[in-house]
């Protein structure tokens, strides 16, 4: 008689050991080499910006959840990641209050107004960055390296920079985006832990590389300069705001690559990574809808 008494429960029936906290912790660890490289190249400013940004994001999230009378879940680490990503994607000379303001607005407008983690259509860190760029255009484009103001490689011509400097990061730019080596380390770690889907960076970077060859540009330069690599690995891989299906992830990466190349080549802005990912974030629900996998047992002809 015992065997006939089945337990009925909705799916999922098999659970992974992974929790939100675990995944977030992996991303934080993956960001550490980037942060260390940033501190090596930009000094104390890197520590100042990332710490302030993270603190501001966490405190804002806690206040928002208190006000909305929801359980305070700042310990899951998602606000910490938003703060770290935003802190790493600004120029080293940005005033402290601006990064605090940017992180707070990123959490309020980019995340909590949509219902918190899992409800936000746009990557909060990129929302914060976009708001900072629109609000304070001149401090957000003041690039220095070794205390000297200079242009980022994207504003100059490709020939002026050696590949190894671009690769290790001894160039001007946002603090977290310059060292391709550190970013790749973090990316490999996330891939190893199963947090990063290789489809996203491969399709994003691949599209940019192919398009730059077609347009007669240097593909290696295009990939290594600007915040493309940083965004392709850490921001395009955000689980909440990108498609859930494998096919959808290819579409997302290709779309972002096309938009980025268009902005870089014909747009008035030197860099288009933020907007390319934000635009594809907006398209994500649609991509999910049209790449829905076939339900098992349906959609095939009998005897087929």
């Amino acid at each position, binding site marked *: 008689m015992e065997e006939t008494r089945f337990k009925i429960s909705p799916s999922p029936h098999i659970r992974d050991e992974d929790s939100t906290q675990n995944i977030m912790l992996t991303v934080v660890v993956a960001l550490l080499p980037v942060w260390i490289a940033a501190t090596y190249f930009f000094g104390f400013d890197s520590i100042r910006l990332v710490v302030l940004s993270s603190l501001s994001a966490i405190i804002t999230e806690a206040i928002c959840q208190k006000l909305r009378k929801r359980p305070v879940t700042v310990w899951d680490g998602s606000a910490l990641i938003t703060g770290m990503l935003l802190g790493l994607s600004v120029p080293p000379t940005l*005033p402290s209050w*601006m990064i605090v303001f940017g992180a707070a607005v990123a959490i309020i*407008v980019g995340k909590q*107004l949509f219902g918190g983690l899992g409800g936000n259509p746009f990557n909060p860190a990129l929302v914060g960055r976009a*708001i900072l760029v*629109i*609000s*304070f*255009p001149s401090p957000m484009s003041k690039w220095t390296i070794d205390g000297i103001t200079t242009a980022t490689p994207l504003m100059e011509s490709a020939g002026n920079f050696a590949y190894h400097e671009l690769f290790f990061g001894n160039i001007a730019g946002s603090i977290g985006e310059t060292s391709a080596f550190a970013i790749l380390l973090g990316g490999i770690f996330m891939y190893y832990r199963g947090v990063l889907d290789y489809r996203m960076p491969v399709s994003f970077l691949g599209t940019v590389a192919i398009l730059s060859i077609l347009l007669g540009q240097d593909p290696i330069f295009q990939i290594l300069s600007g915040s493309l690599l940083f965004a392709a690995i850490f921001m395009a891989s955000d689980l909440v705001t990108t498609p859930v299906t494998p096919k959808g992830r290819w579409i997302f990466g290709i779309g972002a690559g096309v938009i980025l190349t268009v902005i870089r080549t014909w747009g008035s802005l030197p860099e288009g990574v933020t907007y390319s990912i934000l635009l594809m974030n907006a398209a994500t629900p649609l991509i999910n809808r049209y790449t829905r996998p076939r339900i098992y047992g349906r959609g095939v002809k009998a005897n087929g």
Partner: protein
Amino acid sequence: MKHFYSDFIKGLWRENPTFRLLIGLCPTLAVTNNALGGFSMGVSTAFVLILSSTMISLVKHLIPDKVRIPAYIVLIATFVTILELFMNAYLPAIYAQLGIFLPLIVVNCIILGRAEAFASKMPVSRSIFDALGMGFGIIWALTSIGIMRELFGTGQVFGFQVMPSSFEPIGMMTAAPGAFITLGTAVAIVTYISDRIAKKHAKGKKATE
């Protein structure tokens, strides 16, 4: 008398076209990047609204039901043309700032909405009070959005510096995203206060029963 009061007062808060009914949002978002723009757009819309509501209420029995919307549009367009020519002649700076949104008052939801929902059914006197209330509702709504955006976007209000010179203007507020964020925040605050008032009302009623 009681009718007149409630017809007038409802447009200011309870049925405020911008914050409660959320209609006529195009000009609300587009021309409120400073306080003067919001105020002049509010006054222009209110002017057309009051005159067209009065006129439509006067001629409502003459208009065949089937062609009433085109007839209203013709009436509204007449007043908009008057306003446009007047502004072009005497207030060229504001005329230039409002741009295309001035002629677009013709198709403003608020005006056609009041014509259809109120003026075409009610006596002239009540229509005037309704239009006055709605008109002042638009004016205070658009002006307050304009003030907030100008204050944070440039540190000024109506062109006068109010923020200390150390204040760094937040450029986003005068750009398009600032319009959406300000409007959303204002709607949230108004809704919150309305809910509080409604709750208090319900409690008061219970206590007296």
